């Protein structure tokens, strides 16, 4: 903790240095063009760090340092710790572009190293380590560790079965960390009647799920909220997963079809030895996104086929599901945007599930309805961003609110504060089980 304090003082020192380095307005307010010669210093030459004559290229290195702190507000619950976020993080990014065998080749590396007061350890994550190239003109290949996203939902994922990090999401880390990287070969085939993208991950990469270390959750077996110590570790299949997207845009309307063959991303199955694991999953789906009434409309569905529980009568394996989403977003007044989504999960063979479940009272409803709302208000050319994202489920009678305020003091300094507020009638529902994890957080970032 003392180390963290020392580093934060260092960061604050850098902040004040950044403030004092700001120069006076180089072009007078009255006549922007006249001042240039007289002052002998124009806004285009100073502080850019290089002259414009040097073209971008070769190796580019950037990154940031970030200090984050967050804590539970109310009851600590079974996790015997108030802190939900405590870290000093350093990000490094390097990019190289060049030619190889007459074709352009790009290499990228993005990594984080941080000291985490919750795990009390120095953590390392490689978020991107890729080579990008085109073996033939109409194909792009991205090989290596990468973050992948597709689909039309806003914080709701149907056909996007790439790994997500819910621990980071609930702890108040930057939105970027909701997407976890995977070691994947991604290939895109373009220029035909439709574009085709394939993502092959040789070894299944699950979500970062709640383990009990940072956040508690409901255990149907225990019948209560738990925070296992040591944290749970589910058994991960050592098999591949394959994701496919076919898409095309016609007159501004985006059509896409999806397929996935792999495993449920959360450890919702129990194996013969009673260990948590990931059940086999195959899914197909489709989406559409189009402009409508000066806003955007999207709809998406996905059919989740639980391969090992085709009749839904095995309580140790999740049932098949049909998931559907419809959303609309538009700017209501200048700089104030509102988005609404309706989402439903229909659990197939629900009767068979209840009949065979040892704990039918904790099983999900046959139809789980979720409404979401995103409000975003940007002030003073996006320097300030006020945001509130609300999940509310009428069928589960639970909710999750994500308010946040961020301030972009300069290109270097950014400040964010926010909260994660969970609640609900019951302990066993999706958001209701997270009530004791309700937290507030702050983050300070310096970009270099």
């Amino acid at each position, binding site marked *: 903790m003392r180390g963290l304090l020392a580093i934060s003082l260092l960061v604050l020192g850098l902040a004040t240095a950044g403030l004092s380095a700001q120069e006076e307005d180089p072009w007078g307010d009255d006549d922007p063009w006249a001042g240039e010669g007289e002052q002998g210093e124009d806004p285009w030459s100073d502080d850019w760090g290089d002259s414009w004559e040097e073209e971008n*290229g070769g190796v580019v290195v*950037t990154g940031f340092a970030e200090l984050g702190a967050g804590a539970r507000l109310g009851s600590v619950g079974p996790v015997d710790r108030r802190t939900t976020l405590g870290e000093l993080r350093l990000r490094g990014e390097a990019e190289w572009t060049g030619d190889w065998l007459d074709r352009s080749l790009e290499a990228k590396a993005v990594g984080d190293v941080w000291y985490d007061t919750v795990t009390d350890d120095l953590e390392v994550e490689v978020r991107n380590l890729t080579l990008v190239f085109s073996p033939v003109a109409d194909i792009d290949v991205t090989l290596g560790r990468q973050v992948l*996203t597709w689909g039309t939902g806003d914080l709701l994922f149907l056909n996007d079965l790439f790994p997500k990090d819910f621990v980071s999401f609930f702890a108040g880390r930057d939105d970027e960390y909701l*997407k976890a990287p995977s070691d994947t070969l991604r290939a*895109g085939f373009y220029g035909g009647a439709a574009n085709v993208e394939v993502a092959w991950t040789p070894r299944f990469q699950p979500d970062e799920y709640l383990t009990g270390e940072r956040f508690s959750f409901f255990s149907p077996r225990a019948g209560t909220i738990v925070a296992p110590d040591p944290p749970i570790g589910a058994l991960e299949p050592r098999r591949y997963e394959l994701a496919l997207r076919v898409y095309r845009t016609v007159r*501004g309307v985006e059509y896409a079809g999806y397929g996935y063959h792999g495993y449920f991303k959360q450890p919702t199955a129990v194996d013969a030895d009673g260990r948590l694991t990931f059940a086999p999953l195959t899914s197909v789906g489709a989406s559409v996104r189009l402009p409508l009434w000066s806003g955007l409309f999207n709809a998406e569905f996905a059919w989740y086929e639980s391969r090992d529980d085709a009749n839904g009568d095995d309580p140790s394996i999740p049932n098949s599901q049909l998931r559907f989403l419809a959303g609309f977003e*538009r700017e209501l007044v200048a700089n104030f945007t509102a988005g609404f989504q309706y989402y439903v999960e229909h659990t197939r063979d629900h009767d068979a599930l209840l009949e065979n479940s040892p704990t039918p009272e904790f099983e999900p409803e046959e139809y789980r309805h979720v409404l979401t709302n995103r409000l975003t208000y940007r002030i003073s050319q996006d320097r300030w961003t006020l945001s509130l994202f609300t999940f509310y489920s009428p069928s589960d009678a639970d909710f999750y609110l994500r308010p946040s305020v961020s301030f972009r003091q300069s290109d270097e300094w950014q400040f964010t504060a926010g909260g994660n507020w969970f609640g609900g009638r019951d302990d066993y529902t999706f958001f209701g089980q997270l009530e004791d994890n309700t937290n507030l957080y702050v983050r300070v970032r310096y970009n270099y």
Partner: protein
Amino acid sequence: MMNPTTKLLSLAAMLMLPFTAVQSAPDVDTIVERANLAAYYAGDDGRTEVRMVIYDAQGREQRRQFTILRRDVADGGDQEFLVVFSRPSDVRGTTFLVKKHIGRDDDRWLYLPGLDLVKRISAGDKRTSFVGAHYFYEDVSGRSPEEDEHEFVEETDEYYVLRHVPKEPGLVEFRDYTTWIDKETWLPMRIEYRNASGDTYRTIEAGAVETIEGFPTVTESRVQDTSLGGYTLMQFRYIDYDIGIPADIFSERSLRRPPLEWLERSEGGD
């Protein structure tokens, strides 16, 4: 019979006729069309690098650097733009694709590399800040002339002065705006936007014009907005026209993987 003096006068009048026809201003629609072509449609395609300095009301500054690729589907008609950011570091790798349409809403997509997210931007957002600048999304690709009614205000030695009134006032934040169009280059050199009470609150000025590959081109501009405070300066360099950018560059593929071949500076570029 005309006396010699009247004859001479009528001859002079006849000679004057074509002369005065040249002197009188073209009609409003012609000016609007030529200004639109000069400002947004030079060549069949083009590339430019842009540096932007954004000053807020307190004088604090932010910077942006990006490259724009443009392709005209038809002169004065549909256009496509790809914008690739290189600075600042937290915006680096962000890309922006616009498909500008005449007669229907433009399509806009923003790619956020950290999330690998292709985010669509709704048409209603077009008059909001472009990456924190005083410029709007709509200023990047140009406001379609059909969205306004145009009227002639006056002709000065250097400019045609026009006033433009939006056909759908509910979609914009201004009541009307006035443009000063250079009579030689047809470039709009100054645009003033007025609010509901008739006060000018937003001004876009061209600070420098250079002729590049035969096309008069604005190479420096400034937008000031008293309702927000502060202003944004823009500088354009390494401009190239008619380089033959293929249509398929303006696609989701390029959002994820910007086309280096077309983004790099050409040998002959300015």
